[in-house]
């Protein structure tokens, strides 16, 4: 269970990115975060694994306090939180396999990884995860030879190497075409359903959110403006989130 209490983030330049956000995510939920660009979605997700240092407020993951954890503790907590990104954030010159294996770094205790060598068990795990996202045949290729959708699937496999209980997805399909978006989100849905990994995913399109979310929250200028079921978002709610001039776009 993820608990966020009174989370506020003010960047050094004075931008108020999150304004007193409180939120509880139960295990196994697929929560979609909606909001315009700059509404604080990315900041919210990055505060949860402390890629961004919150200004105030507390975050509890399965009862453990994320905020205020020491360097060593936060590494252990990050290990159980997978994350995928809009730009995939793969090492482009690295092979697919090496990219996936790097997801295991939080667990390694041997010196092997210092010279890019992993235990056989980890390599097997990597192959297994690559199979699950359907790119087991390309392990020795350079990551940047893959298409966008394939790269995002490699990123999912990398996150699965962490054996996470929570998956953060920061606009995972924003740089993909509609068809590929669905294929990527279906993999995310699958790991949510089959493995019970809680998903917190920010999206641009309401139609995608309605299709995949079990619950939707919305941010506007750093404030939580909606928290409820996908079916509860009607025209008035939509305009409250996206502004008066917005129109709904259907994505196939």
């Amino acid at each position: 269970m993820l608990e966020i209490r009174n989370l506020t983030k003010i960047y050094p330049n004075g931008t108020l990115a999150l304004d007193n956000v409180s939120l509880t995510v139960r295990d196994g939920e697929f929560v979609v975060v909606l909001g315009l660009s700059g509404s604080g979605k990315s900041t919210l997700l990055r505060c949860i694994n402390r890629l961004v240092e919150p200004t105030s407020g507390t975050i509890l993951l399965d009862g453990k306090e994320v905020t205020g954890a020491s360097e060593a503790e936060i590494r252990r907590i990050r290990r159980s939180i997978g994350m995928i990104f809009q730009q995939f954030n793969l090492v482009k010159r690295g092979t697919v396999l090496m990219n996936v294996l790097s997801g295991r770094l939080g667990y390694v205790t041997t010196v092997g990884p210092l010279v890019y060598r992993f235990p056989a068990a980890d390599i097997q795990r990597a192959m297994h995860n690559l199979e699950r996202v359907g790119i087991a045949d390309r392990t020795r290729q350079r990551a940047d030879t893959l298409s966008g959708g394939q790269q995002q699937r490699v990123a999912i496999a990398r996150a699965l190497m962490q054996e996470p209980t929570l998956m953060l997805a920061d606009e995972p399909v924003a740089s993909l075409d509609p068809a590929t978006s669905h294929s990527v989100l279906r993999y995310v849905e699958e790991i949510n359903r089959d493995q019970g990994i809680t998903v917190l995913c920010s999206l641009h399109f309401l139609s995608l959110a309605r299709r995949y979310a079990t619950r939707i929250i919305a941010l506007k200028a750093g404030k939580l403006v909606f928290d409820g079921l996908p079916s509860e978002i009607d025209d008035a709610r939509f305009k409250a989130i996206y502004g008066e001039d917005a129109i709904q776009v259907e994505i196939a």
Partner: protein
Amino acid sequence: MATEEEIRLEAELSIGTQSVVGSSPHSVLSTQHVPRRLVAFLLDWFIAGYAIYTGLFVVDALIHALWLPSKVNANPALDMIAYTWRQSEGVTTLGGVTLPKFLFFLLVSLPIPILLQFTNDTLGLRLMGWARPLLPLEGRPWYRTLWVFTAVVIGIETFMAGWYITEVDPIFYVQRFARGWRISKQLLTPDWSIFWMSVQLMLESIFLALIATVFSIVFAVPLAFLGARNLMRGSPVRMAIYTLVRGFFNIFRSIQELVFAIIFVTVVGIGPFAGMLALFVHSVASLGKLYSEQIENIDPGPMEAITATGATRLQTVLYAVAPQVVPPFLAFTIYRWDINVRTSIVVGFVGGGGIGLALFQYQQLTQWHRVGTVAFLTIIVVWALDALSARVREKLI
């Protein structure tokens, strides 16, 4: 709102006297920017003094060049301040300028900057980012503004004074052309009897450069990571190390290899070892700087992703930074080797070993045929290395 403010400021400046220091209680700008305005005034003062001094200097030079034999001081007005660049006793002074004379110049020129301040369009104000373009209000094109005029005058004066100080004399060069041609003819008919010995010395230069480059990698790579801002951000201690390393890079990079060579030749004696040390020290600094800039330019995405998996800082560097920087590192290193081979020849001149030392000796003995041989070999090797390193860089970056 913002545009209105702009217009108001421009109007205020164009009125001129209004915005002179503290004269207008309404002027927000003039009180806020007193130090800047003062610095601008001092700059203008210096510029005026410089313009007068250089102007007189150029006039003196022209008088001598056009109708007086160069060593005769026959202009009574200019004699008082003695403008010739070199004193007759061989003592070099700045055109005869002593401190009292310099102060005299400043004093004489003082009214000029004071008067100029009222125009609000001086070069000093420009340099301090104070004066705004006045064209919308005055309709004057930029090239007819006062500060452009000042800049052009100073530019012309500086160029003419420089010509005089450098003793540029095209006619003399043409007169001496025959002499140059004689040497060139000898250079173009190399003495092949020393060819194989020169090849051996050339190899010494190449290997000397190679060893210097390899040694410098060992020190430059770790230092580069400590000198990369994006990795060192976060704590004051880390930032202090960063500043220290960057300072080291900048200082040692700015010292020529030649200077290091002179030092090391006195330490370890004439020979390739001294040359290697000289190239090594300089290479650590310049490779380190290039490496750390490369680290600063990486895509931060993978770093974020690897950090998010719970990896340690070292693991993040190994898995997110290293793969991105190794190819450019290799490219820079090969380029550095190429540079080091070329520099080793210069370093050899002061006793750093390799072919440079031989070249120096032949030149001292005016054996131009042999200098020609060495030059020929150098051209071949430098060209080949340049082509090679260009090819490798192309493949890697």
